[in-house]
């Protein structure tokens, strides 16, 4: 049956980005206390924040989160590394020294008034070292949902003394071993283990929130990044269990769909897949090789996958792509009902009208950092759209605002906390921690 003529106009009205900021937020009223660093924890809180939760990010006074100083000189922009912003949108930034008892007490008071706590310390650290672990905080707030992100989990042989980064998760899970081809391993270019883990962690929190909406009960949720990647390897384990073998590396091909590949065009690379018999016939016509559709080597998905057959197809498709630009291939394939997509660079994405119209490229004007171009929230919600409200801020930027408005502390008490070092802002002159040169107090919340 046909697609109704007015469908896309109707859909565009449901999601019209011009109205994002007028619409309500799904998680409004949920407060998240973010005690984490780098990406895995902060992104968990960030994803909840995109959906409307109020996120209070706690950092060590002086230097703050290490993402503020990542990268070489090309990363530094307005006195901070560009690596900092992607996991820290629309948060309230407070600098609290958790090594001091007055700092720990502030965390307890904030957790008492929070719905969710996010942390990514080594298992047990917050309880044993700082007195603000799950068992201590739930005494103060039984409705609390406490999510702890680690590499290997809170318990089990590998949880003791082993730290983790995304790259480790890629390696130990087996994902690297099924990626690419050849002897030298391919490191996946982004911090996939952190980001996928963070979104899974946010999903765990939201399931716990559903339970709390029903019963009033909080709980402890944990997410281990190595286990996240293990889970995202489709049929790898089932295959190993049945055959005793590792699945073969497939490079840019696919064990299921063929032809599938990445081809060089005159201006870059394009990915192209014709996964059904119908799409394959259409592709043969498109590239002027209609006879291939009748060739017994390519008669079924199964026979097209055989290595020699797949190679033969790849050569023909590759030759056709080589004489065209990425846009020509994409447009011609689309007209023929075949999936082809340019291998997009950041520059391609920033200039792409489609991604801009969907706010996946999100441009905003921040009071401290002025014009920003970032990746917008992934899911689009018609009634409660996810959004970016402001960019990450210097260490302790919202100290006074949060301590006054959330904890009701008076200015005298706040001054005393600064004086004893329980709270603090950025250290002057410390790269990555403070505001840009020439900042004159813009963005401060009274």
């Amino acid at each position: 049956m046909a697609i109704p003529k007015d469908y896309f106009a109707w859909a565009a009205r449901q999601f019209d980005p011009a109205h994002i900021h007028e619409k309500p937020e799904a998680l409004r009223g949920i407060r998240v206390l973010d005690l984490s660093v780098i990406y895995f924890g902060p992104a968990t809180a960030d994803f909840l924040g995109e959906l409307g939760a109020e996120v209070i990010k706690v950092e060590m006074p002086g230097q703050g989160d290490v993402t503020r100083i990542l990268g070489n000189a090309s990363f530094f922009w307005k006195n901070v590394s560009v690596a900092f912003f992607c996991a820290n949108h629309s948060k309230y930034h407070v600098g609290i020294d958790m090594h001091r008892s007055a700092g720990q007490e502030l965390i307890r008071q904030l957790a008492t008034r929070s719905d969710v706590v996010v942390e990514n310390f080594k298992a047990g650290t917050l309880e044993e070292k700082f007195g603000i672990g799950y068992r201590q905080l739930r005494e103060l707030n039984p409705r609390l949902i406490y999510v702890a992100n680690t590499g290997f989990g809170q318990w089990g042989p590998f949880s003791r003394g082993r730290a983790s980064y995304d790259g480790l998760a890629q390696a130990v899970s087996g994902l690297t071993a099924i990626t690419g081809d050849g002897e030298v391993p391919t490191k996946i270019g982004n911090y996939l283990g952190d980001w996928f883990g963070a979104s899974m962690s946010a999903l765990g929190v939201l399931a716990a929130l559903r339970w709390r909406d029903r019963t009033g009960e909080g709980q402890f949720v944990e997410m281990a990044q190595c286990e996240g990647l293990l889970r995202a390897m489709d049929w790898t384990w089932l295959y190993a269990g049945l055959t005793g073998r590792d699945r073969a590396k497939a490079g840019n091909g696919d064990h299921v769909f063929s032809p599938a590949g990445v081809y060089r065009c005159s201006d870059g690379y394009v990915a192209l897949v014709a996964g059904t018999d119908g799409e394959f016939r259409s592709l043969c016509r498109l590239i002027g090789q209609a006879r291939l559709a009748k060739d017994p080597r390519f008669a079924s998905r199964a026979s097209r996958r055989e290595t020699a057959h797949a190679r033969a197809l790849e050569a023909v498709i590759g030759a056709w792509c080589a004489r065209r630009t990425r846009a020509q291939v994409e447009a011609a394939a689309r007209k023929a009902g075949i999936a082809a997509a340019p291998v997009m660079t950041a520059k391609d994405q920033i200039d792409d009208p489609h991604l801009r119209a969907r706010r996946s490229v999100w441009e905003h004007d921040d009071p401290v950092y002025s014009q920003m171009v970032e990746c917008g929230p992934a899911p689009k919600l018609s009634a409660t759209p996810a959004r970016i409200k402001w960019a990450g801020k210097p260490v302790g930027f919202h100290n006074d605002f949060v301590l006054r408005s959330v904890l009701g502390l008076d200015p005298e008490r706040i001054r005393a906390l600064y004086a004893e070092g329980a709270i603090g802002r950025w250290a002057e002159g410390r790269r990555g921690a403070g505001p840009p040169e020439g900042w004159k107090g813009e963005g401060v919340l009274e």
Partner: protein
Amino acid sequence: MSAEHAKPVDGPPWEQWIRAAEEPSRVPDLPEALDDLMVLDLSHGHYGALLTATYLAELGAEVIKVEPPDGDPARRWGPPDASVGGEGLAFLAEARNRYHVTLDLGTAEGRRLVKGLAERADVLVEGFAPGRLDGLGLGYRQLSKLNRRLVYVACSAWGQFGPKAKGQPAEYDLTDQALSGLLHITGDPEAPPVKVGSWISAYAQAVWGAVAALAALHWRVHSGRGQMIDVTGAEALMRYLEYTLLLQHASGHTRGRTGLYEIAVFPYTFVPVKDGWAFIAGYTDPNFGALCRVMGRPDLARDPRFNTTLQRTQLENEVQLRDEIQKWSVNHTAEEILAKVLADPGPGIVVFGPLNPPTRTLEEEHWWERGCFKRIMDPIYGDLLLQMPVWRMTRTPPRLKWPCRPAGYHQEHVLQKYFGRPTSGHTERR
């Protein structure tokens, strides 16, 4: 330091307590977070939509999968050299915990029954071409009139709106990886880009679809209203590309492929070891100090090429530093290096682990003890090794109940439950 002010906890040490609280064998006795929800799974040859419903099913939702009389085409997806009971392994691995019915959307009776189910559903997940279900009278536009509380998740390659939405082709993982920008930054600069080996975009699309659906359900508690959610696999992965867009905006630097090097953090790389390959990292100053200590090369920590994070992430320095690490690592097995790492007293910590083929991962006791994998003897499909849900939750843990079932397996049960009697207009199988 004032740890002495920390209020001690009554009871066993943390590790012991949390292990007992998350004990895998206790899971069936505990309640499920989402067991008041009904989810209609209309994924049809769409892995991301299928997985969206899978996550919700693991967390306790009742998921009803509607397939055409000859089954979801995704049932035939799997590697060529293994299948079980005619099911492709990709489907069998993930189509779990569902109730399977067959309804023909091409008939008025089939559509009537889908509408009847949608009237009672909390969430509907689909992966048809945008507008396709709308054309059948089963889109959000029509179903929301029957059920204003419905949360409708639509998965597609280019989305439901935007200049490229109309006329889009089918969604595949490879094209999603290309559009997301992840493909461009994976691999060596001198070679073509390399895709992630699993269908990672579908996993990413599914987690965003499920996150958005649960956020929408929270909002529904007070508003009483559902909504429509639009998720693409490409944008799902694109959100995972950290600073890529801002770096472009701020410095004009287009992030490219860097192979085993890294523009933001170093060392953070794979190195050869005596018995294979391994990951090794120590990129902050204290952690780099620990790495140099473990390597027995304290001189490197003071070397002006490597003594700050800024210096260590200069590409020419990265190459030299990785060479130094490799000279050392090739003389030790992964196990030997891990022992050194674990024995290091600090300050700082080295992150290290072997690059495992999947069959090696399966030999490690850690994952089994934590219940990451399970071997089951299924009455229909036999001996299956399956990956388990990933979240540990002390009150409402997720769980695997059963693997996929043949198309239409629960026909009578579902129609009886929702329509009170067996209904015509379908073909029952098995």
